[in-house]
């Protein structure tokens, strides 16, 4: 299929971090991001999403492999230790 090869990065973390994270993602050079409210469960227990302190967000960033590496490193260094966090990437083709 035709399209520009990119990397899609997905970050699932605590909702309270949203304002800080999106600022940092911009500063790290992303051309955009998409945020969705989520709930879930992981190492840090259940996140029911029924109040702000207990909700997750899911951030999607489409960008170069290098951008994703940079964001992932920043996230790991800054938030991994103390916050619920999941980071993964997949291959993607950009069509616009």
């Amino acid at each position: 299929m035709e399209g520009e090869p990119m990397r899609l990065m997905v970050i699932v973390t605590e909702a309270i971090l949203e304002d800080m994270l999106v600022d940092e993602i911009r500063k790290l050079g992303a051309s955009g991001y998409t945020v969705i409210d989520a709930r879930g469960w992981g190492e840090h227990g259940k996140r029911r999403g029924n109040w702000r302190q207990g909700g997750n967000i899911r951030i999607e960033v489409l960008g170069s492999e290098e951008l994703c590496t940079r964001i992932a490193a920043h996230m790991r260094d800054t938030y991994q230790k103390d916050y619920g966090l999941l980071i993964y990437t997949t291959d993607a083709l950009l069509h616009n």
Partner: protein
Amino acid sequence: MVSEPVVLFFLLGAIAGLAKSDLKIPMAVYEALSIFLLLAIGLHGGVKLAESELVPLLLPGLAVLVVAAFIPLIAFPVLRWVGRMTRADSASIAGHYGSVSVVTFSVAVAYLAQRGLDYEGHMIVFLVLLEIPAIVIGILLAKAGTGGGTRWGKTLHEVFFGKSVFLLIGGLLIGYLAGPENIEPLEPMFWDLFKGVLALFLLEMGLVASSRIAEVRSYGVFLVAFAIVMPVVAALLGIVLGWGLGMSLGGTLLLATLYASASYIAAPAAMRIAVPEANPALSIGASLGVTFPFNIFVGVPLYFWLAEQLYAVGG
């Protein structure tokens, strides 16, 4: 029977949560209810304030603040050395207990209304004043001697412009500037519905709290004991201070309740940013899962009874 029927809604929510009912209050509704309560409390305080003189309040206000600062300073060493908790957890919990709970305060206000007792309008100013310093003290305690940098900018911003403090102060100012007459058309909304909204909010609190209690339990008996004894100690401070300052019985109950209550709106948000290494399950579990229900079911009537004794004797 129970002191004030509105707390039965908390019980209903807690049962729903424990029984894994599919009853859910959507987050948007939770946010709307809490915005309503914060604004209503602020507006009401502002209107009451517009009717009172401000200068005579300065000294009592200072006293209330200074005594309040002792609460986290008492709590911290107990948590740290009796409870053997980490510095961060001790500091964070101390901050929560130094700060205040708007909903507990509201239950005490309803308790007074039910008994036809009045209180000093500026209590709501104290409510606002007390939310902040304990959080800052908590953060300082967490950082003392660790050399770790704090996101102070972000944290103070979270404290002052966090919706809790912001709406209380905003409502206070609007009520004060507009005055009683101009606020009247807003009363069907912000005052007549107050108790009904509080009931719904307590339902949701019950749901949230029920999911938290399991987490506290896993930390053991110390934390549960702390979450019951600490509010009583703090309430005693408040009762003696209120009496000493010559407050009305109603005002003293509110002050005791403020001291006894633990924050679960402003403090958790600020602490999560400023002291991320603290485990939020502990602080929220203790304040929301134990202290909050203790206060609304047992605490408020108990503090009232204690205050009555003091006023009867020391009158």
